[in-house]
């Protein structure tokens, strides 16, 4: 489904990704752990071309998305449309549109990008919002919702575009602890329905339960990867051990 090969990403002089290789099968849930600065967010943002890599290839459903129509430099060389209509992303800071209602947040992209009619878009949006437990908040504005509620809207918003892959960038890190569960529950459900997911997270419990594969990143490379039980309970690498030690001590 998704295959990263030799991905490098630089910001000015700083090399944030130093050669990452990763394969994700359809329906797989991959949890990415690591200290801050390890490049895990950047990795996610490469996959949906928010930050395209300097070197390397990313294959999405067989196509190298780093080379697109009119290959040259800049945005025309990337296959933006192809990517963004198949890959959805949910952010740590939710990034809901504050000037639009909950319903409008979810219907905006389907209507503007996919050209769906208002009825079609509304219908789908309502269904999705019901699914995440917010069917009664359709006409509310984001500022009136709790963090957990906002994040669930953000998930519904991404799902409205019928993505094949969902990227989650530390989506619970900005939430108060008691709100984390409701969001993780949505992720859990999505996973059980067979969505292909890349989840950058600190929630080890979730990684163990829901993840099919756990990846530990540090210093711009993948240090260790494997089944959750293996990586989390018996890490092989020093750095992995160290990191897990620190996290578990909390």
């Amino acid at each position, binding site marked *: 489904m998704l295959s990263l090969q030799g991905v490098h990403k630089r910001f000015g002089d700083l090399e944030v990704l130093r050669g990452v290789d990763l394969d994700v099968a359809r329906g797989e849930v991959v949890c990415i752990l690591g200290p801050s600065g390890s490049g895990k967010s950047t990795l996610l943002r490469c996959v*949906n071309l*928010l930050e395209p890599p300097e070197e390397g290839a990313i294959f999405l459903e067989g196509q190298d998305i780093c080379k697109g129509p009119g290959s040259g*430099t*800049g*945005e*025309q060389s990337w296959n933006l*449309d192809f990517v*963004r*209509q198949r*890959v*959805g*992303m949910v*952010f740590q*800071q939710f*990034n*809901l*549109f*504050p*000037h639009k209602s909950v319903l409008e947040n979810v219907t*905006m*992209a389907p209507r*503007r*990008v*996919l050209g769906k009619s208002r009825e079609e878009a509304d219908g789908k949006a309502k269904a999705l919002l019901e699914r995440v437990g917010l069917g009664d908040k359709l006409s509310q504005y*984001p*500022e*009136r*919702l*709790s*963090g957990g509620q*906002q994040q669930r809207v*953000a998930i519904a*918003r*991404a799902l409205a*575009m019928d993505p094949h892959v969902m990227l989650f960038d530390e989506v619970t890190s900005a939430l*108060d602890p008691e*709100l984390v569960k409701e969001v993780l529950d949505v992720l859990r459900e999505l996973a059980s329905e067979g969505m292909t997911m890349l989840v950058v997270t600190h929630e080890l419990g979730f990684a163990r339960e829901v993840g099919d594969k756990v990846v530990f990143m540090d210093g711009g490379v993948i240090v260790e990867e494997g089944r959750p039980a293996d990586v989390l309970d018996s890490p092989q690498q020093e750095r992995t051990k160290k990191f897990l030690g620190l996290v578990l001590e909390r």
Partner: protein
Amino acid sequence: MNEFFNQFFDFTVMGDHFDEVLDGFFRNLLVFALAGALALAWGLVLALLRQLPSKKFLPVRGITIAYIDVFRAIPILGVILLISGSIPYLEFIPKDIRIPHWFGQPDPYWYGVLALTLVYGAYMAEVYRAGIEAIPRGQIEAARSLGMSHGQAMRHVVVPQAVTKIPAPMLNELISLLKDTTLVGVIALGEALLIAREVQAETFNASAYVLGCAMFLVVCLPAARLVDYLIKRNQTKVARGSHIAV
């Protein structure tokens, strides 16, 4: 002291010439109305051009930035004189366009509107820019992740939010513009202060100036207070905080 009052506050002179000066003031308002609307639109265009992403649009961004720099740095009076002193001579433009008498307004009106639009467009572009840059990057990222193009992201997500942040500084620019419409008197548009100068030349008394200025005061002072109020209200809004209501 008495002399002072006679010179500046001769109510007979003011009374006799009130209508003339008021007439002139309406001309200022007319210039303001059109130039203001055009500058608001032109400023937005400039701000958006300046925003275009990616290497391919570098020349566009460059030219836009140069335009904004230049027109913020030349005195408005200079621009008015340049326009009125050059356009009429460009013979390749048909006479009806280079010496416009459209909608009953004479050519100094149109030259003045053009000059003010060109200059204030630049200032307003910077106000828009500040508004746009105040919108968190995450908004654009979310929009683009959902598949919207840069243009769509601007149009539906960024600009609608940006315009709610700019009323106070924009209003400041507009107040400035209203006062600067007096500069068009240099090319003999019968605006309030030019008329006041004529009255002065006839009566040897400066009260007409006071009258003219008073008319501006009546409009601009409440507007300036409104700006203060808007700024204050915005500050309390930010202080109270808006996002997450847990």
